[in-house]
Structure formats: structure tokens, C-alpha cells
């Protein structure tokens, strides 16, 4: 098994101790930071997403894989900067106003990070004005999450606030969460909807393509 394969397997297994060790070993062996990221970590997270969609992986496996990737990235990041490797895009995420649920949003963040995006997580109970401010500061995609039926209206009011600020054309909007449907996403003017974290990563890539 070569260095890249070891990293791939360690991320897939959610091994947060082995992953950074293998990343360091690969760097020491002269493997490029770009190859470690793309062929090792991102490829592994893509496989995590596929296994999730096949009902072979569930949220826990996704969580530990993302944690392992994060541990590996902590070693790799300076080398990526040195090599001039940029994130594929910048995503701002948040759970909408009135909603405190965060595990779904966190998973989306992890999977998007695993797909090569830079993530800015605004947290939970985020007011429309905070989202507007984040868009004003420059972002490719805004991801809105809601778990409660009672807070879906906050999703709509956030999109309205972005329109009223004249920023709708500056950002792609994706939405998700238990009660959100594709039909609802279209109704409120989002650019896309993903039913789970894995498909959110696929959607984000398509939105910036």
C-alpha cells in the first residue's frame, strides 16, 4: 500500500490518529500536498459520501471520517498554502433564526470541507442580517439549514433579505434540513436543495461549476 492509499484508508476508517501520521509520512516521502489532498483525502471523503448514500455509512461514520480528515489537514494546510493550492470555493453555513439544531449543518460543513471548500460556519439561530453581512464580505455559496417546521419561514426571510440587499446575484443559495423539500427550495428561490450532507457536497460542486 503506498502513502496515498494509507491516507485514503485512514480517512475512510475515521482513524484520526493514523491520518496525520500518514500525511506526515507522505510529505516526508516527497508526495505532493496536492496529491495527498485530492487523491487521498478528498477521494476518501467522496467514497464516504457514496457509502452514506448506499446506507452503508451513517452519520457516525461520516463524523469520524471528517474528524480524521480534519486531523490530516492540520498537518497538510501549511504545505497547501506554500504550494498555492486554493480552496475550490468559499461556503458560508448557518442554521436559520430560531433554530438551534446543528448536527446536520455541521455534517454538511464537514463534507464540503472534504470536497475542498473553505467553510465559514455562522452557527445556529443566525439572523438574516448576519447572513447578508457574510454574503457582502464575499462568498460563493450560502448554505441555510433548518430542522424545525416552525423555522422554515426564517429560511424564506433570509433569502428575501439577501434579495433586498441587492446581493442575490452575488451568491448561490443552497438549503437543507429535515422538513425541507426540493419543491420548497424552488418556491423560496433557492438555487438548490440537498437531502443529506453527502448530496450537499455534490450540489455545491455543481453550483460553482
Amino acid at each position, binding site marked *: 500500500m503506498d502513502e496515498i492509499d494509507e491516507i485514503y484508508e485512514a480517512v475512510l476508517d475515521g482513524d484520526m490518529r493514523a491520518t496525520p501520521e500518514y500525511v506526515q509520512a507522505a510529505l516526508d516521502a516527497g508526495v505532493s500536498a496536492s496529491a495527498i489532498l485530492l487523491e487521498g483525502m478528498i477521494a476518501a471523503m467522496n467514497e464516504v459520501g457514496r457509502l452514506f448514500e448506499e446506507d452503508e455509512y451513517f*452519520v457516525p461514520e461520516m463524523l469520524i471520517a471528517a474528524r480524521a480528515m480534519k486531523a490530516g489537514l492540520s498537518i497538510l494546510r501549511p504545505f497547501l498554502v506554500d504550494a498555492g493550492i486554493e480552496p475550490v470555493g468559499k461556503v458560508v453555513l448557518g442554521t436559520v433564526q430560531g433554530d*438551534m439544531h446543528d*448536527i446536520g449543518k455541521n455534517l454538511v460543513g464537514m463534507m464540503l470541507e472534504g470536497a475542498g471548500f473553505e467553510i465559514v460556519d455562522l452557527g445556529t439561530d443566525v439572523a438574516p442580517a448576519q447572513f447578508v453581512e457574510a454574503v457582502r464580505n464575499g462568498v460563493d455559496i450560502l448554505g441555510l439549514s433548518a430542522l424545525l417546521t416552525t423555522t422554515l419561514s426564517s429560511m424564506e426571510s433570509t433569502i428575501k433579505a439577501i434579495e433586498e440587499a441587492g446581493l442575490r446575484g452575488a451568491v448561490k443559495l443552497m438549503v437543507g434540513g429535515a422538513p425541507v423539500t426540493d419543491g420548497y427550495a424552488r418556491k423560496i428561490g433557492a438555487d438548490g436543495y440537498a437531502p443529506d450532507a453527502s448530496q450537499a457536497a455534490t450540489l455545491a460542486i455543481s453550483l460553482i461549476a
Partner: protein
Amino acid sequence: MEMTSKQRLLTALKGGVPDRLPVTTHHLQDYFRNTYMDGKTDIEVFDHLGMDAIHWTEPYRPDPSQGEYFDPLQEAPTNPSFSKRIVSDDWCITHEALPDSRYKTIRYTITTPKGNLTTVLQSNEYTTWVTEHLIKEKKDIDIVGEYVTAPKCNVEQVNQEAEAFGERGLVRGTICGFDISGQPGTWQDAAVLVGIEKLILATFDDPDWVHELLGILNGRKEVYIRSLKGAQYDVLELGGGDASTTVISPKLFRKFVAPYDARLIELVHEAGQRIAYHTCGGMMPILEDIAAMEPDAMETFTPPEMGGDARLAEAKQRIGDKVCMIGGFDQYHHFVNSSEEDTRAAVRRRFAEAGEGGGYILSPSDHFFDADANLLAAFADEARQCRYQ
């Protein structure tokens, strides 16, 4: 012959065929009753809408021989079905309001001889949530294990309420949750105390610690269950959405949920009671695992349109001969922004999918807050027309 609501619900609960499709709901929320039902009581709402009624009650009693007493510092529960907490000199609970411009925010402090535990809850007009979990460090569970009190059921009060409720419907309770913000299922209780993401990671990093915590919580629930003997409950709730496959894997369910909750169900049956196992979220990958714990009923069969994964007809085929099924109705799309015809058609579909042979109770898949009273009435009326005879 027309059955009473109690006969109808009980017949379905036992897997039998009632006169017609039983129709009820999970807890009625204060927000809904006050906003859409002119503040009617639960039973008034059930009567107004023509549903088979549920009376929730959970009265505790302290055991003075163990130094237990009702918490003198607790504010009166807003819902009369919730009991006052049981405390002791070694498990004292105080609370203080924290300044917050948006939400009612309360910090609770549990004082014990070996240190304090704190948790912070916030609430709005809909619900309450935890912003600071009680168990922050691994050693905190030692304090819980040594000093936590275990409530006992006030059987006499349950029976008085059951007698008064009579044939109007089912008397339901829950297996006791942890103090302040607990939940009935052992894993669910732990998730509230630790935080679900942290708890999931702990199952990989320190499974022995997770088992120790679950064991402590289980022990407390066992004491409560042993005190249920003679209580005229019709069914008690166990479980919780954090044990669903929307949140955890079948592997974790088998390792950290089923062994503990199956033990509780066994004890519940020994105490002459029934269990409805509540799994709001993904159920399909663990349907047989839940049924293997031998609950009397399973709920909530949340459909994909509401973030669950329930395929009701398939579920009926897989486990319908083993347990009563409760739920499966999409309240978000059929209690609001729907037409009466669409809501009625959805009721018919649920009856066609899960009604055959009985053992099915139509209910929204868990709570709802906003609902059009006309759609609710249509929901109940259509169910009343789904007859077996």
C-alpha cells in the same frame, strides 16, 4: 358495534382489528392549543376534533426512607401531566434566570457533596432546548451515579386519573427522563446530558465510559419501572429520535441502544405495562432491531417528506405482525397548506398501507405546532370513515 375510544385504541395496541381506524395524536403542544384552539384543554381538543383521546400523566412520588422529597425550589410545571422533581439533601437543584434578549434562559445547578453540575436551557413560544450540557467532563458521571435520585410512580394518582378518564381513551406515561430536561430512552437521555455529537464520538473513543453512563441512567429507570406495578397505564413511552438512523448507525443502535432499552422493556412487561417505542427519524434500517426488543407498539414512522424514511406499507409487511404501528402521517404537508381533499386522501393512503388486519393507529408523526383546525377535523373525520366492519 361501535367501540369506545379506549376499546378501539387498546384493540389496535394489542395488534387486533378495531371497529374503525383509531385516530389520535402525540402530545398536544401548548402553542397549538393556545394559538389555534382558543386555549382548550387536551381533552377538549380531542373532543372538538373527534379524535380518540390520550391522557398523559406522569406523577412521581419520593421515598422518604431514602431521604427523598419533592423539590421545594422547583417552579410548578407548566403542564399538569409533568411531575415535580424528586431531590434529596445530596441532590439539590437550584435555578437562576440569565439575561438574554431573545429567549428565556435558565441555568440549573445540581449541588452534591462532591461538586456541582450545571446545565443551561433556553425556551421560546414553541419549545425548550439545551445550550449547555450537564455532563461536560467524564468524571461528572461519577457524581451522577453516586447521588442522583430515582423517582417512583405515584400509582394511586395514576389510577385515580385513569378511573376519571374511563373509556375516553388511553392513559399514557413515559419512562422517567433525567431531571430538568431528560428523555425516556436510555441513549436519548444520555444524548441530552452529553450532546449527541460528543456522545457519538465517545462511542468510538471511549466506549466503556459510554456504557458506564448508560448503565447509570438505566439503573435509575429500572427503579421507576419496578414502581409501576398496579398502575393503570395503557401504554408508556420509551426511546427517542437520537436513536434513529437519521442520527446513529444500526451498528451503534445494536451496541449502545438496544441492550439497554430491551432490558427496560422486559422489566416493563414484568410490571404488567406496555411500551410504545418512539423513534422520530430514520427507522427502516433498524425496524427488525426495534421489533426484536419486543415493544407493544412502535412510532412515529416519519415519512421522507418530513425528514424520516418510513415506507409504511413495507414497514407493515416487515414488522406489522409483531407490533402495533403508530404514526406515519405527514402533519407538515397535510395539517397546513393543504386542501381538505388532499388531507383526506392522505388518510386513505395511510389506511391502505398500514390498516389491513388492524394493529395500526393513525397519528401525525410526532408533534406539530401550526395546524389548520379544518384540516385536522378532516383528518379525524376521514379516519372515522375508514371502517373495518
